[in-house]
């Protein structure tokens, strides 16, 4: 139109932080309300732990001393910590569904949002893992809080030493965070139909895999193979879906738009 556009080119961005700083600002944004990411999960955890402790105490006092070992054996099938993984899933979902449109208003690019969110989720996974590892270690040292109880050393966490626990917890948290991030990204971009289709697609892939294994008559071999894996190796394999979910979430959110 006019010659003025040329003059607009050198829009001076000096004094503006670089990309790295923006990414870290996004990561911080997820922690600005500490209640959501720390206080609330800690309180719920404490409540569940208190209930467990009471139950353990009741069982402990109603069982003869020679049977207490068996009871402790049975208590390892505790799913009490499962909620915290569900909660991490929820955190990841809200981090994207609500914080994403909010961050766009702050002039954040989708790329910086995705990277900052990934850092925040990994940071949270690390903090949560350390917390649960500390509790698992206490549980080991105190022989189940004095009652043979098992919550943080339940059978689903195939570890013995503290660093094994740290590894297992971190792998689980990362898996829940990034699958949550993936589904939330799909929702952000394609809304409910996208979400339903992605569930359907995932189910089809799963069924197809099962069908292929069945057709190849490979079930026995597969179970032998899985059984031969060290538990920690098995857990380590969870990084494959975690990384796939993270990369897919990144690709999906790059073209997502806020609602309304």
């Amino acid at each position, binding site marked *: 139109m006019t010659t003025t556009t040329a003059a607009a080119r050198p829009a001076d961005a000096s004094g503006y932080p670089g990309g790295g700083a*923006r990414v870290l600002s996004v990561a911080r944004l997820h922690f600005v309300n500490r209640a959501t990411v720390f206080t609330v999960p800690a309180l719920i955890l404490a409540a569940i732990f208190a209930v467990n402790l009471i139950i353990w105490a009741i069982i402990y006092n109603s069982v003869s001393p020679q049977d207490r070992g068996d009871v402790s054996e049975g208590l390892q099938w505790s799913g009490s910590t499962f909620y915290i993984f569900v909660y991490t899933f929820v955190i990841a979902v809200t981090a994207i569904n609500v914080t994403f449109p909010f961050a766009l*208003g*702050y*002039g954040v690019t989708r790329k910086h949002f995705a990277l900052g969110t990934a850092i925040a989720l990994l940071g949270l996974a690390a903090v949560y893992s350390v917390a649960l590892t500390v509790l698992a270690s206490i549980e080991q040292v105190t022989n189940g809080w004095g009652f043979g109880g098992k919550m943080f050393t339940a059978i689903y966490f195939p570890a013995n030493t503290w660093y094994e626990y740290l590894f297992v917890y971190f792998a689980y948290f990362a898996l829940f965070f990034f699958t949550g991030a993936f589904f939330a990204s799909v929702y952000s971009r394609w809304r409910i139909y996208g979400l339903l289709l992605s569930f359907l697609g995932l189910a089809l892939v799963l069924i197809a895999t099962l069908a292929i294994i069945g057709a190849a008559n490979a079930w026995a071999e597969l179970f032998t193979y899985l059984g031969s894996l060290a538990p920690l190796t098995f857990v380590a394999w969870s990084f494959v879906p975690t990384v796939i979910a993270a990369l897919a979430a990144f690709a999906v959110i790059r073209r997502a*738009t806020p609602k*309304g």
Partner: protein
Amino acid sequence: MTTVIEASGLTKRFGSMTAVDSATFSIEKNTITGLLGRNGAGKTTLMQLLTAQLFASSGSVEVLGASPVENARVLQQVCFIKESQKYPDDYHPRHVFESAPWFFPNWDADFAERLIADFRVPLRRRIKKLSRGQVSAVGVIVGLASRAPITFFDEPYLGLDAVARQVFYDRLLEDYAEHPRTVVLSTHLIDEVSNLLERVLVIDDGRIIVDEDAETLRGRATTVAGAAAAVERFTAGRDVLHTERLGGLATATVSALSVSDRELANEYGLELAPVSLQQLIVRLTTTEPAPSLVEAVPAGSEKRA
């Protein structure tokens, strides 16, 4: 003057619905532009395209000389406050004011403090529990205190009372005088902001139908009032945007009058009054706008240098 926003043939379709229809316009640096139009006319969609929240179906937009899409250099100089802004569920206003400075390097904390007091925003209460007006105030404060080189306000004051709106206009003008920047403001309360605006963009049904200097636009039409017969005689053969009759009296809105027209009106014993911006826009966007007036201010008209 420097152009900071330039849209060319900008179009956004949602399925079969065209929300923004080949919008072509530009906005100069350090001006306050009003983006006016009816509900669903495409104001929010247009702003979302300018801030890269939405992707255009066709056409192009340049902000600060480049496409804003995924452009960190451009976007970090942009602040977009929209009426429908969602805040993270458990946020309190203090969380917003704590985090905003990380994203807006020009953030003025003292100014924010003053605005928080002006608008009486409670800092330690969940945003969900705030009144509609208080939620709007949170956005308005961020928009003002961020001092972003380009600030978009989309219906920023839904639910704000008259006092709070006046505070907003006053603070905006004061701060704009000291820290010039480009402001694009969409609103329904046209008369309230009419003195603030330097330029006016009117969008109707996705199309930019007016792109004009506010001053020039105000001069485009005049209201003629008097005896019905005299009004009728005067308006015969003229572009009449609107007429109203009450008994033997009538008023008519006609497009720009020349000096001799004015003298003639005086002879007929008619009273002349300027048409408010709001009246003018109501006339322009009510079903069939008078064709002659729209022709007089064509969409995307070339700016006078």
